[in-house]
């Protein structure tokens, strides 16, 4: 039986930067547990030794030449910005240091 606790959901919501209300947190833990339970089935094949497939295509080595091409103007780049100043995107104060 897969269980996922409310605290775990809260931690995941923090990692995913999504505010969840108390009601949402309550509901989500239950919903996810049911879903995960159903999909734990894939674990039945854990012993099978096959490579993982991240891609249906066998393509490799797709490249682009190192030649510049025009992009967006500053105006176009900033057109949808919630806030901009001096040609830059303006964002609220950042707490975490990189």
């Amino acid at each position, binding site marked *: 039986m897969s269980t*996922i606790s409310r605290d*775990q*959901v809260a931690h*995941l*919501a*923090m*990692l*995913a*930067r*999504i*505010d*969840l*209300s108390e009601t*949402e947190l309550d509901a*989500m833990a239950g*919903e*996810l547990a*049911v*879903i*995960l339970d*159903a*999909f*734990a*089935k*894939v*674990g*039945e*094949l*854990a012993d*099978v030794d*096959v*490579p*993982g*497939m*991240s*891609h*249906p*295509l066998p*393509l490799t080595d*797709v490249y*682009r030449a190192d030649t510049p091409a025009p992009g*967006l103007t500053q105006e*176009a*780049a900033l*057109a*949808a*910005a*919630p*806030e901009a100043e001096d040609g830059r*995107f303006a*964002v*609220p*104060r*950042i*707490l*975490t240091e990189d």
Partner: protein
Amino acid sequence: MVFTPDPSDLTRLPAADLAQLLTDRAVSSTELTRAHLEAITARDGAVHAYLHRNDEQALAEAAAVDAARAAGQDLPPLAGIPVAVKDVACTIGQPTTAGSRILQGWLPPYDATVVTRLRAARMPILGKTNMDEFAMGSSTEHSGYGPTGNPWDLARVPGGSGGGSAAALAAYLAPLAVGSDTGGSIRQPAAFTGTVGAKPTYGAVSRYGVIALASSLDQIGPCGRTVLDTALLHEVLAGHDPKDSTSIDAPVPPVVQAARRGDVAGLRVGVIRQLGGAGYQGGVRARFEEAVALLGRLGADIVEVDCPHLDYALGAYYLIMPSEASSNLARYDAMRYGLRVGPDGVPAPSAEQVSAASRGQGFGAEAKRRIILGTYALSSGYYDAFYGQAQKVRTLIARDFAAAFETVDVLVSPTAPTTAWERGAKTDDPLAMYLGDVATIPSNLAGLPGISVPIGLADEDAMPVGLQVLAPAMADDRCYNVAAAVERDLVAGWGGPLLDRIPTIATEA
């Protein structure tokens, strides 16, 4: 016999016929486009297939095409035929929301490659159609802008995530539509609305400019009311794109030719044992069995095929897709575009708080669920058990299909286990919703092409049922060939397309 088109009939003709009328100058693109815009005004209030209408631009393009034609210029085959576009593809000059409030009103500064191809094909774009938010859903009930009705019964869902495009076709609000399919989002709505929808081979159609859900599963595809129409649009959309690294550099398979042929004599058809048994609605099974029998009568060899790992497909899909989606949707953080709000009652919120509040408000419940699920599946400590394991299952499924295609040319199944359900019936039970994707998901995992073609109505609810045809990678033409054969025979038997039986949608005054 002289065909005198009545303006109100223009919206009922297949695109192939419209193309002929335009070439013959029996009708102008302006008339055609205007007829559709008027239909949208009359009926879309009830259906809600469209999120945005593009009247000015569409009519301008229509007029330009008419002028070019009058001047004797050579024009592409579908020039002047209007098309609807699922709101998942970026369109300059029209908002692109992916059905989400987080992108409300967002005007892209660039066109998706498929949109560029539509413009190069001189097809006026009627507008953007409704969808489940970020393509996460099977009913279009998870759209941030309200649901779409199924034109067969407006109280029922049209399917999803591309319910808008399918409903637009079924309600005669567009002759052609572009959709996207990650787990069945083109094919299942096609089945639910009695229309045709195809998911091309993964990589056959460019994903550049199409808002991503799950990068290794998403494909853009054509939707129409007939197999030939769908094939015609397929040839406009498909082709290599250097801007998409996963794009296939090979000629487009001859889908139009195949759609015109519709000949299954001697074809080996495999019925997938794992798709279509108990758990599938009685009326769906009945129509499916009849369709299979039909193929036999038309000369195909029918065998049952065993793909044992398909039982694990749903699990693998609902681990891989949310994982990729959780990462693809991280960019919606209120910093560069999209909804920006702060948390209630916080005077000078930080960037982190603003991102979390904006995402909390802008994303709907299903999107949040899948993002959290995906974040979990990728977390350290869980990667091997969930995402990593799902990737292995994917390999096994691909191998099952590869083995099957050594003995058969195409595989068939019902497109979905049920017909369209009543709105609200499954929204409280996400798992029940996910189970509806069981037939379409495996081909997304394996990257194979698939098509859904209408094969009748279910007895119990008089709702449409679809046949799904799958083929090996880059053999999309086989799908169209089989679908065309089935369509030709059934339509002849019915005395007209299935859609002729659709109830009339009340027009608005």
